C-alpha cells in the first residue's frame, strides 16, 4: 500500500478497481485483518479494527470471495448457518433466518436448503455464498470478485439481482473487481487503484467518467467513456418529447394539431390500447379522417427501463432518429430522439444515479 486513504459512507457500495497486482484485494483483506496492517489503521464506525480479536471482528463482517468457498461437507442450510452457529443462536432462530436469507437471494428454501454444494450450479452456489455472508446481518460486507467465477450471461443477472437486493438492505459494501464496467455498474463510489497500492482517484461513477484524473485513470476507464456514461442513465431519467398519438379514423385536423404541439415532425399511429403501430405518412392525412398509411414501422420501440446506451444502439440499428417509448404495459409515454442522448451526456454528474439507485 502506498498512502491509501479513503472513506466509505454507510449504506454505500465502494468499489476498489484496478489492474492485477494493484493491491485492491490486499486492501480489502486488511479490513477484516485477513492481511496484516503494518502501517496506518482502519476504522469501522470510528473503532479501530485492531482493537478486536480477528475472529470476533470477522463475525461482524460479511465475507464473499471469488471462488465462493462453500463448505462441501455441509448442506446449503449448514453453510448459511455457519456464523449464527458460531454465535450460539438458538436452533429455531437459525432455521428461520436461513429460510429468510435463501428467499432473499431468490432460492427456494424447501428445494435448496438440504442440497450439497456439489449439487448446485455456479450461479446457485454464488447466491448461497452471498446468503452466507449476510447471515448475521453484518453492517459491513467485503466482496472480492464475487461474480468472477460465473459465466457472463448469469453474471449480469446476478449483478442486477444484487443491486435490487442492496436497494432493500442498504449495506455498506467494499467490492473488489478488475472489471471497470462492473465497477461503474455496481459502485456508488469507485476507488481506482494503480500498481503499488496507490489510489489514483476516488469518485462516484459519473464523475469518474466525466472527469478522470490523470493518464492512468483515463486509460483504465477506456476510450469509450461517453458510451459508458450512457450506460448509467435510463430512458426514464430523460425528459422525453411528447408523442403526437393518433388513431385510425380520428379527424385529421386534430391530428395536425397534435403534431404542431409536439417536437416530433410526424404523427405516431397507435392502436386502441395506446400501443405503437408506426409513423404516419402524408398520405394518411389527405382526407377528413386519418387513414392507415405508414411511412415506417414503429421500430425501435424503447422501454422506460432501457439504459441510454442500449437505446442509442437500437436507434442506430434501425437508422431511426426517433423511437417511441413505452411503459411496462406497452403504452406509449413519449418519444426519444438521438439529440436527447448527447444532451444527456452534459448532465451534471451529481444528477446521475449510481449503484443500487441506478438498477432497473
Amino acid at each position, binding site marked *: 500500500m502506498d498512502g491509501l486513504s479513503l472513506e466509505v459512507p454507510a449504506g454505500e457500495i465502494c468499489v476498489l478497481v484496478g489492474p492485477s497486482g494493484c493491491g485492491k484485494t490486499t486492501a480489502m483483506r486488511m479490513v477484516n485483518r485477513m492481511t496484516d496492517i503494518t502501517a496506518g489503521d482502519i476504522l469501522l464506525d470510528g473503532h479501530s479494527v485492531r482493537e478486536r480479536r480477528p475472529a470476533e471482528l470477522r463475525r461482524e463482517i460479511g465475507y464473499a470471495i471469488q471462488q465462493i468457498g462453500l463448505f462441501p*461437507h455441509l448442506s446449503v442450510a449448514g453453510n448459511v448457518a455457519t456464523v449464527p452457529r*458460531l454465535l450460539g443462536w438458538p436452533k429455531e432462530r437459525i432455521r428461520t433466518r436461513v429460510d429468510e436469507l435463501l428467499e432473499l437471494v431468490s432460492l427456494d428454501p424447501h428445494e435448496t436448503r438440504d442440497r*450439497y454444494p456439489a*449439487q448446485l450450479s455456479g450461479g446457485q452456489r454464488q447466491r448461497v*455464498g452471498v446468503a452466507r455472508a449476510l447471515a448475521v446481518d453484518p453492517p459491513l460486507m467485503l466482496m472480492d470478485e464475487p461474480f468472477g467465477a460465473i459465466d457472463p450471461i448469469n453474471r449480469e443477472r446476478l449483478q442486477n439481482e444484487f443491486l435490487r437486493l442492496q436497494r432493500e438492505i442498504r449495506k455498506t459494501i467494499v467490492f473488489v473487481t478488475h472489471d471497470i464496467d462492473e465497477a461503474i455498474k455496481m459502485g456508488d463510489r469507485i476507488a481506482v487503484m494503480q500498481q503499488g497500492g496507490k489510489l489514483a482517484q476516488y469518485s462516484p461513477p459519473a464523475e469518474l467518467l466525466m472527469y478522470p484524473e490523470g493518464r492512468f485513470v483515463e486509460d483504465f476507464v477506456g476510450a469509450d467513456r461517453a458510451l459508458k456514461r450512457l450506460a448509467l442513465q435510463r430512458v426514464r431519467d430523460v425528459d422525453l418529447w411528447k408523442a403526437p398519438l393518433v388513431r385510425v379514423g380520428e379527424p385529421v385536423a386534430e391530428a395536425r394539431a397534435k403534431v404542431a404541439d409536439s417536437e416530433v415532425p410526424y404523427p405516431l399511429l397507435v392502436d386502441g390500447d395506446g400501443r405503437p403501430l408506426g409513423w404516419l405518412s402524408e398520405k394518411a392525412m389527405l382526407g377528413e379522417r386519418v387513414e392507415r398509411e405508414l411511412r415506417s414501422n414503429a421500430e425501435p420501440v424503447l422501454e422506460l427501463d432501457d439504459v441510454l446506451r442500449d437505446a442509442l444502439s437500437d436507434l442506430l440499428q434501425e437508422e431511426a432518429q426517433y423511437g417511441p417509448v413505452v411503459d411496462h404495459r406497452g403504452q406509449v409515454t413519449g418519444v426519444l430522439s438521438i439529440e436527447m442522448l448527447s444532451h444527456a451526456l452534459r448532465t451534471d454528474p451529481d444528477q446521475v444515479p449510481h449503484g443500487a439507485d441506478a438498477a432497473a
Partner: protein
Amino acid sequence: MTSVLAQLEIRERTDSCVADDGFCPDWIADNLDRYVDPFFEHVYLTLVAVAIGFAISFALALVAYRRRWLINPVTQVTGILYTIPSIAAFFLLLPLTGRGKTTALIALVSYVLLIIFRNVLTGLDNVPDEAKDAGRGMGLTDRQLLWRVEVPLAVPEIMAGLRIAVTTTVGLATLAFFAGAGGLGGQIFADITFRSNVVVAGGLAVLLAALLDGLILLVQRGITPWTRAVAAR
C-alpha cells in the same frame, strides 16, 4: 539342517479323511469351538492395535499439519517401524517386554503408524483452499476451522487409511502367536498340513478382515453424506 514342520498334531488319525490331511466338513463341524478363542484373541489384537495406532498417528498428524517441519522426521521414523517385519519386531522386543499380548501390540501398533499418519495428512492437505479462506474470513478460529471444516473434509481419506490399517493388521496378527499372544495364526501353525485346519483358520482371518473393512466402509458412507450427493449439471 532339518526343519520342523508342525510341532503338534491336533487331530486323531481315526477318520480316513482326516488321516489324509483332507478337507473334512464333519471334522470342522465337530471342532469349530477350537477356533473360537483364537478368533476373539485375533479380534482383540486387531482392534486394540489399530485403536492405539490411530490415536497416536492422528494426534501426530494434527501437530505436523501445523508444524510442517515435523512431517519428514515422523515419516522417516514411522517408515522404519513399518518396514521392519513384524516377526522380527516381536523378537526384537522380546528382551524388553517379554512374551505376551503387550509385545504383539507394540509391534502391531508401530506398523500402523505410518499408514494413518500419511492418510490423515493427505486428507487435511486436500481440503480446498477457498473453503479455508472463506472459513477464516467468516470468523472461525484456527481450532474451529480444524474441527468443523478441515477434519470433516479429511474423513474419506482418513477412513481409507483406517481400512488399509485394519486389513493389514488382521494379516499381521496371524503371526502374533510367535510372540505368545494367541490368535488364529497359532491354530494354523499347530497343524499346517491339515487342509481342514488351514482353510478354517485362514478363512476366518480373511473373513474377519473383509468384515472389518466393510464395516468401516459403511461407517464412512454414513458420516459423509456429501460424498454421495450427485454432482451438479
